[in-house]
């Protein structure tokens, strides 16, 4: 996880800097092509003011490409639409699931063909809160290594 911390600080150094001498009188054509460096944090969290992070615990969303220990990038400013992956607060705990709106009802749908977690039909008494919408999933390859090799 330490790499990620350093990665965060990397943006300090990501200012484009061209270190060659400029010949007087004739501008280098390369100067016209300077761009901002690719910055992954901007892609993952374009909306930093409403973005939060959490770890996934468990495998109920394995088939939605969320293995255990994946980092979920959660945007609180987005309104959940049917089919979105959401972080919901339910019965005193957080859960990550697909959200489905159908015929006036709301469901939290897991994605794990092997284990067959139940689909949760959300009722009024459950006081379910959609905490935020998962916009990106960050997976450290250490967590998904092939152990048999």
């Amino acid at each position, binding site marked *: *996880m330490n790499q990620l911390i350093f990665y965060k600080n990397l943006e300090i150094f990501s200012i484009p800097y061209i270190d060659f001498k400029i010949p007087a009188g004739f501008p280098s054509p390369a100067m016209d092509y300077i761009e901002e460096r690719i910055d992954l944090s901007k892609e993952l969290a374009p909306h930093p003011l409403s973005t939060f992070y959490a770890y*996934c615990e468990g495998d109920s969303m394995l088939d939605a490409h969320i293995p255990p220990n994946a*980092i979920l990038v959660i945007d609180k400013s987005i309104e959940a639409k049917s089919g979105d992956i959401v972080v919901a*607060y339910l019965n005193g705990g957080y859960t990550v699931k697909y959200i489905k709106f159908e015929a006036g009802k709301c469901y939290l749908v897991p994605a794990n063909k092997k284990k067959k977690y139940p689909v949760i039909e959300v009722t009024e008494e459950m006081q379910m809160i959609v905490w935020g919408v998962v916009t990106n999933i960050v997976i450290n390859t250490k967590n998904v290594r092939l152990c048999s090799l």
Partner: protein
Amino acid sequence: MILTEISSHQSVRVPPSGAEGAVRLGMKAIIDCNSFYCSCERVFKPHLDDKPVIVLSNNDGCIISRTDEAKNLGVQMAGPYFMAKPVIEKYNVATFSSNYNLYGDLSWQVMDTLRMVLGKDNVEVYSVDEAFLNLDDFENGDLFGLALNIRETVEMWTGIKVSIGVAPTKVLAKVANHMAKKNKITTQCVVVLDTKQKIDEALQSTPVKEVWGIGHQYAQKLVEMFAVFTAYDLTKKTEYWAHKNLGGVVGIRLLKELKGESANEMEKELTVKKMIATTRMFGHNVYNINDIKEAVATYTSKAAEKLRRQKSAANTISVFVVAKGENHNIDFRHGNVTKSRYVTLPVATSSTHELIKPAVQLVDALFEKGKSYKKAGVMLSGLVPDETIQGNLFVEEKHNGKRLLMDMVDNVNFSMRNDIIKFAASGTKRDWKMRMEMRSPRYTTRWDELFSVK
């Protein structure tokens, strides 16, 4: 919901229908987070949304934030924790040790959200949970709708609940905010005072002690000596009277603001601090001088870090220690003895080791054997921009190498976040470290403290 429809041209202001004397000149707002520290805890624990919540001070000594629900149970603000404990346990009040990393980060998030919505120059951060907003740009719009929109945006993006008061002056905006906070449900946490009638009504229902800037003692004096009971009564006084009885120029300004004439313009945000202090309670009483030195050295390096972050250098360092009073059983507020000393350095500096040395020497001067100490602090003042540090006749000019070293220490500490590189004087055990038994995870600043989702 539209409260007032106003059409106005650049210089012609048309009063809203039905109200005499519109006062829509340069509207201001104050946005204030509701029980901010408790709100921060609730962001990550939504089931506490309608439950009583309190947050304790450093060392779990006092209650420094409480929600309305806790207030209704009779939990006193700033009261000692142990005294409220029976109520807390009986009603199962959710109790947290302070988590300043989290609060600081969420505060930044709220303020930045405001800057994004209103424009950087229209936001003046007043404290960790309050900001003044300049609404001049929105003069012709529906102010209630705008404020409601701001409130909802902040809540949606950051999870923090806020109240907003809108009025022609800062003091009146505070009055409006107070009204919003008192009746959160009926007002939807937004109160706009934009006509003379609304302002007068608000002032009539505001006791003078609740006016921003009037302390309890002043309020008592106003009631007893001048029969000034409400803020409205105060507006009937003259400026001459205010100068004489309300603290001179400050009083005049207050009176003007109450009458709807702006006297406190938006201030440019003060990003550079004039003084830096680091003070903490010890986890338990400390008797040993070396423990205090260790603590003071750590505080000094923390303060120096802050100093370098704002690119300043300090020429004065003061240290204070608080010894436990002998008869602390009788009076816990006046039983403690604070002693402090300071030195002025020959040259302003921002380098940790140049600051630690005098700080530790000050401890030698302050420490009395046989006493037990409960708190210590370090203050750096006489701040000047770091680049203007000049040598004087007797001390040679700074070497740049040191600055580089300090930057490196700061960078490493910042990325590792655990003060991995420390000066030897800071010790390694830290016996005196703050007690924080019920602190929630630092959800937004530490990878290893993110919350888990099943």
